[in-house]
């Protein structure tokens, strides 16, 4: 379809989806490349030990290059003609219903493709160094490739079933990677927990798909979105809530947030890629992708907003109390995704900012995690921040990149997080003052806990164990950190200036809604920065002015609660796990004793009955003769009676 035709068709801002041709016809290759890597590494066995890791990294790099070329090409297309679909083959045709294996490449998925392949590629490079000594390196890279492939499938799919496939695929990769060091029993448990909680979310996904097929007869985006306006509001609300349930599972939002902290059991690059930059943001992608559904249902959006705000605050509070550097970052991730979900829940006013924050967050949080990994690498896998301190000098490059990421996340201008978070808070304020207030409070707490992390790790006196010899990490690890650090600096401004991100996503999520603010934007920005600085100051007074005790102090009730993630695990354990265990135990008992007992009981009854009947068989011929005569009497009696 040529540009002129598109311009003609797209009058009124309507978006045109065309058949993918040329470079866009290679969309399948984006997925195939890492999938090939996974297949070769996982099926190839020990033979691929040598070249495997590098091979995998190269493939992801190639995918990134391909994505880049497609991106450049897409920029060259008119704004309304940037969506392309490609159908590879029909997957499951049944009657009128059919599911295609098809891809949709549009500005939204393009953004994700770049994020996933770029950060993914960097994490691969980083892992070359980080995992250099692990005997199972090959498997690790295989899983990473599997993850990249699944994630790309998730964001490129053109229908919900295929999204589901990718959705489960990333869940599997996450399971495998969290449990990569499953020789430690609790790591294996963490992996299982993540998978199962994700599956709880998947209930939402499955049900949403069922509801879509029942209502629209299809799960293709185009079909669902065109039909959604005619559907009843109840159905739309239901689909929205179900998708939200799916999103909460994958994105570790309340109430399915509990797995993310434990997921830090996985190797740190995994935490950076999967549990910070990409997979956990899939929920945001899902909501933004389904914008026509959420646009039509205020109820669903309200639920999304509530989940976002609650998680935002929950994660922030939890983050203040964690001494494990990775868990603190995980809580931060949860909180930041809360921001994104909040933004997505604001509807057309926030979709673009949700994605905006998602992209910047992908960079700076990945950077932070890689930094944390670098610290751990230098500190013999010590994760307790109370055992760090003053690492600034020992690992300067790590410190600089980490610090940049830190400035970005707390939203100091002109770092990336400033722009994206600021816009979200603005949009929230415009929607509802209380929402805005909560978001600003979250920003303050973010500043506090991130400052705490930085101060405890890099500043203050050294509290290392005696046998620790902190050292800077190898080049393969620092280069990705530097690149991500640069991204954390510039990405915000690049995307913000000239509303680039908003305009880029407009074909998919619609134009940004103008919102009126009671107070001028500049004042809001000032307030946010002020609150942030207060947070930093409090952290300074608590963790830099005073020495940090190596043993964690008891703390207030609130601290203790936050340390325990507000008793989420205890809650889950006592409400779901224990009763579940009792239930299964009872059912096993029930099955063995009652159901099978009934069967065996009737067998015993028959056996017992025949044992009793057996007594009639005395073995005496004459008693048999007697019963014969009795039988004869009976028969003759009946005959006589019948003949009467």
């Amino acid at each position, binding site marked *: 379809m040529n540009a002129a035709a598109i311009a003609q068709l797209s009058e009124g801002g309507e978006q045109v989806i065309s058949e993918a041709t040329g470079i866009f016809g290679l969309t399948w290759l984006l997925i195939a490349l890492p999938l090939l890597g996974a297949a070769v590494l996982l099926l190839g066995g020990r033979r691929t030990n040598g070249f495997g890791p590098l091979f995998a990294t190269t493939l992801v790099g190639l995918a990134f290059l391909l994505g880049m070329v497609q991106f450049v090409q897409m920029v060259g297309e008119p704004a309304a003609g940037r969506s392309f679909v490609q159908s590879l083959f029909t997957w499951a045709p049944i009657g009128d219903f059919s599911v295609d294996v098809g891809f949709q490449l549009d500005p939204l998925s393009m953004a994700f493709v770049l994020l996933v392949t770029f950060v993914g590629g960097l994490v691969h490079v980083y892992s070359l160094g980080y995992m250099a000594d692990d005997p199972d390196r090959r498997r690790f890279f295989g899983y990473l490739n599997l993850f990249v492939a699944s994630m790309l499938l998730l964001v490129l799919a053109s229908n919900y079933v295929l999204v589901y496939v990718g959705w489960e695929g990333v869940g599997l990769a996450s399971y495998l990677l969290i449990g990569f060091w499953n020789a430690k029993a609790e790591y294996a448990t963490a992996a299982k927990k993540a998978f199962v909680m994700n599956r709880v979310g998947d209930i939402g996904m499955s049900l949403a798909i069922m509801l879509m097929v029942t209502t629209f007869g299809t799960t293709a985006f185009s079909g669902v979105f065109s039909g959604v306006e005619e559907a009843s509001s109840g159905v739309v609300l239901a689909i929205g809530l179900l998708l939200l349930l799916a999103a909460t599972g994958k994105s570790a939002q309340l109430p399915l947030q509990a797995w993310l902290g434990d997921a830090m059991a996985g190797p740190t690059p995994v935490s950076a890629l999967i549990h910070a930059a990409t997979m956990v943001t899939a929920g945001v992608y899902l909501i933004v992708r389904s914008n026509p559904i959420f646009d039509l249902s205020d109820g669903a959006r309200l639920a999304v907003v509530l989940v976002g705000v609650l998680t935002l605050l929950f994660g922030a509070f939890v983050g203040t109390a964690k001494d494990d550097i990775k868990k603190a970052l995980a809580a931060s991730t949860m909180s930041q995704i809360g921001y994104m979900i909040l933004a997505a829940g604001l509807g057309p006013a926030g979709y673009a900012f949700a994605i905006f924050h998602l992209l910047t967050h992908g960079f700076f949080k990945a950077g932070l995690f890689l930094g944390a990994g670098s610290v751990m690498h230098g500190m013999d896998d010590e994760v307790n921040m109370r055992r760090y301190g003053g690492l600034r000098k020992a690992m300067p490059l790590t410190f600089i990149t980490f610090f940049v990421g830190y400035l970005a996340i707390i939203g100091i201008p002109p770092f990336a997080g400033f722009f994206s978070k600021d816009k979200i808070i603005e949009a929230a304020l415009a929607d509802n003052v209380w929402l805005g207030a909560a978001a600003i409070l979250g920003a303050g707490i973010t500043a506090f806990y991130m400052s705490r992390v930085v101060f405890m790790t890099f500043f203050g006196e050294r509290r290392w164990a005696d046998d620790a010899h902190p050292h800077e990490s190898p080049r393969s690890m620092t280069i990705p950190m530097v690149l991500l650090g640069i991204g954390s600096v510039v990405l915000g401004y690049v995307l913000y200036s000239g509303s680039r991100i908003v305009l880029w996503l407009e074909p998919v999520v619609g134009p940004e809604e103008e919102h009126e603010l009671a107070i001028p934007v500049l004042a809001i920005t000032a307030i946010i920065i002020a609150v942030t600085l207060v947070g930093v100051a409090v952290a300074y007074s608590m963790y830099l002015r005073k020495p940090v005790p190596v043993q964690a102090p008891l703390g207030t009730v609130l601290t203790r609660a936050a340390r325990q993630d507000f008793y989420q695990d205890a809650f889950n354990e006592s409400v779901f796990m224990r009763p579940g265990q009792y239930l299964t135990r009872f059912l096993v008992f029930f099955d063995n004793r009652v159901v099978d007992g009934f069967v065996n009981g009737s067998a015993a009854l028959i056996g017992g009955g025949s044992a009793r009947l*057996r007594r009639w*068989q*005395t*073995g*005496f*011929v*004459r008693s*048999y*003769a*007697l019963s014969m*005569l009795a039988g004869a009497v009976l028969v003759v009696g009946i005959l006589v009676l019948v003949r009467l």
Partner: protein
Amino acid sequence: MNPENYLYLASILFVIGAVGVLVRRNAIVVFMCIELMLNASNLAFVAFARLNGNIDGQVVAFFVMVVAAAEVVIGLAVIVTIFRTRRSASVDDPNLLKL
């Protein structure tokens, strides 16, 4: 006299034979009682032949006799065998026909 009286007589003899089988324990007597029952049925057959005016009843009675003879031969052989091993002609002694 009514020829049906033969049938009544046959019935009575048959019942006596049956009771004998149930009551007596000496295998040989039991056998005699069985013979008595067979004879009673023979009497009935002959009476039927007469009542119906054809010879078939008598032929059946004849066959019954032959079968009875065969049965007696085998039955007595069994009794002798049992007697040889168990030294008893009582039908209550071989009561192993049970689990």
